[in-house]
């Protein structure tokens, strides 16, 4: 028997008004795994990640974290979100705070840890991701790649058990993409559990443990990168891969 999955989705459904966007998704992610969600625009990748982060309440099914249902509507989502980091395509840094304050905000408010205790920890984080010299810069003084890395550091500072990344490289100029993907590789090597929605097929092929192809709100096919990219069994997967590769 495999160990219990870190995260498990059972028949999750989500509609916006009359539009059903997630139509019964089953997915399990194990500790330390890197799972890539691929699929065309509008297939529901972002929505799925937002559901995982409890930003959107799901309509049916359940989401288990370490075996406990975190999607129960009567649970307070706030402490659970602190265990699951989410990084957005558009970074969404707070523009009125510098990089350091952006990172410090959540731990300071949520865990009520004093600045003095936090400062060395956060400085270490910046150091680890080679951003030490950018700590006092404001978002608009940073390049896109640096902003995205600060956004990742910000999510890391809450010491989450899982990180969700939503197309974190699509708003970047091509030459900046690799510096962000390197950070993802580094996180994986440190044992973090990771779920990525991505258009970077090469990265998915190289680094993922599992690739899921999403189409119209359904996981059509999942498997190792080799299975998906070399031998897709579904015609829809094949059509998609042909158009993007």
């Amino acid at each position, binding site marked *: 028997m495999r160990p219990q999955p870190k995260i498990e989705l059972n028949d999750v459904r989500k509609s916006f008004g009359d539009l059903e966007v997630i139509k019964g998704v089953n997915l399990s992610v194990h500790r330390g795994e890197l799972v890539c969600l691929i699929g065309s625009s509008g297939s529901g990748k972002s929505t799925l990640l937002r559901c995982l982060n409890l930003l959107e309440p799901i309509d049916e099914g359940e989401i288990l974290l370490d*075996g406990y249902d975190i999607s129960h509507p009567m*649970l307070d989502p706030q402490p659970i979100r602190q265990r699951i980091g989410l990084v957005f395509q558009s970074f969404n840094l707070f523009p009125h705070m510098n990089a350091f304050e952006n990172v410090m905000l959540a731990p300071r408010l949520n865990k009520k840890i004093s600045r003095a205790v936090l400062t060395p920890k956060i400085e270490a984080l910046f150091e680890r991701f080679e951003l030490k010299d950018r700590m006092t810069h404001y978002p608009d003084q940073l390049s896109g790649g640096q902003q995205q890395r600060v956004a990742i550091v910000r999510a890391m500072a809450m010491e989450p058990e899982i990180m969700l990344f939503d197309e974190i490289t699509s708003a970047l100029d091509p030459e900046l993409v690799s510096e962000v993907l390197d950070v993802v590789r580094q996180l994986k090597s440190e044992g973090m559990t990771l779920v990525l929605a991505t258009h970077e097929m090469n990265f998915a092929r190289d680094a993922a443990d599992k690739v899921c192809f999403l189409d119209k709100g359904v996981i059509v096919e999942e498997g190792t990168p080799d299975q998906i990219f070399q031998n897709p069994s579904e015609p829809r997967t094949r059509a998609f891969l042909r158009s993007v590769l």
Partner: protein
Amino acid sequence: MSRNTTDKTGIVAAQAALPAKISRTAYNAQKKRRSLMIASASTLTVVALIYVLVPLAPGWERVKNSFFNWEVLVRTFPKLLDAFLIDVMIFAWCAPAIAIWGLVIALCRDARSPALFPLRVFATVYNDVFRGVPVILVIYLIGFGIPGLGLSRTWSNPYIWGSLALILSYSAYVAEVYRAGIESIHESQRSAAKSLGLSHWHTMRHVILPQAIRRVVPANMNNFISLQKDVALVSFIGPVELLRQAGVEKSLLANFTPYVGAAIIFLSVTIPATRFADHLIARQNRERG
């Protein structure tokens, strides 16, 4: 399935306290019902408290008699409504005049040819002065000053000069709104028109203004709602409109209820208008955002 023992965020404890598996749809419906009940209950409580507590104030009887006197309201309301017609009339001729004159001022401020420099100076000074002085002062100064220059009876009519004062004041505000609209049209629209060989005036008339004016409709709505209220200030130089009529009744009856009546009449016009303007602005923001 092996159960994990960490419970950092207290999910186990929390879930133990929760009812077993419930239907999400049922839960949401129930939650909505509960919210509605809480909301109604708390609203009612607050209203009830006000209703019970205020009359306990020692002077309430007197205040009620002075401000919320039903008999006085009934007696004066028809006269107030009559007087409100004057406001409506003044508004009806001022509003289009302001719309036009404001546009002229805005165009003067935008004049680029050096020969028209005095127009630009004029428009700038104009806006500074009329946005800077309280409307009521403008009404006094123009309403009594200009007729004093020795005009015939027909031409010294306070309706004319009061309206003129309003028009002059409000045009300054409206002109600024138009100007903001004109400036908000992207330079590339001007470039496109120029590259087609259109003249400055044709560009303005056919390309810039139609877009700019449409864009500032909501902002202008707010100006005209303010105007609707400030029409009342014309009463200071004679015309017996709503506010003045309320004042007369107040003097004669030594009772402030007519002012409450006036407030009711104003609200019945301005609330729907403000709502409509807000709605327009919200729609515009949605469209842009």
